[in-house]
């Protein structure tokens, strides 16, 4: 029976924690146990009965879809990532631009050239901003 519990734990590992999950796991486990007892009563070995119950359970993917797990979950993760990406690119590009400005004014103050690399570097946060907007 320990095997059965482990299997149910494994099946539900991607489903977000919460009261609902606990309730459903409980329900699934109880019903599976009953099925195993039933099979044993009909003359199956415990090991066989547990295996059959597990195989008969089928694929959890369908269940996840019903739970609305996959999509929403992945999307929020991705959205958070694009925000972090944008922040990183803004900080990173300002550092690089600051470096150019410093070099420009310290070594060649008579010639203003830092604008050119600045435009090039600004593509980076611009792209990240675009990605964030597109992800919305």
């Amino acid at each position, binding site marked *: 029976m320990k095997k059965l519990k482990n299997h149910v734990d494994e*099946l539900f590992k991607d489903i977000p924690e919460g009261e609902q999950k606990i*309730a*459903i796991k*409980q*329900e*699934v486990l*109880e*019903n*599976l146990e*009953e*099925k195993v007892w*039933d099979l044993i009563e009909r003359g199956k070995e415990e090991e066989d009965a547990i295996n059959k119950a597990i195989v*008969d*359970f*089928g*694929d*959890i*993917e*369908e*269940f996840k*879809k*019903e*739970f609305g797990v996959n999509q929403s979950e992945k999307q929020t993760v991705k959205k958070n990532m694009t925000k972090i990406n944008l922040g990183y690119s803004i900080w990173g590009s300002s550092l690089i631009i600051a470096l150019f400005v410093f070099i420009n004014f310290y070594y060649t103050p008579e010639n203003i050239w830092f604008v050119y690399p600045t435009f090039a570097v600004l593509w980076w946060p611009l792209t990240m901003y675009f990605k964030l907007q597109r992800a919305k």
Partner: protein
Amino acid sequence: MKVQGCGNLIRSDIIRGHLDSIILRLFLEKDRYGYEISKEISLRTDNQFQIKEATLYAVFQRLEKKELIESYVGSVSQGGKRKYYRITMLGKAYLSEMVTEWKELKEIIDLFLEGLK
């Protein structure tokens, strides 16, 4: 999900579309719990159609969300503190609508497929 008919595996997507109705029908008879439903389906179809539990709980989830069934914890006299489901008024209405729809559908399909060998 495995469906066997005439020794062949029938494509299960046809029956899938009617799972809600099948399960609601079983709840209409009396309140039941999960394993009871899968047992009953296997029994009545003489093991030709065995529903996967994963599918079953997905259907329960869907039906409950649509408020066609509701769940409660059974008393010990009912045979343990299991999670039972009962059909709601909405569920009954939905089921009778499905029955009407099925009758019409069956007539249409029969128009084309009935009597062919």
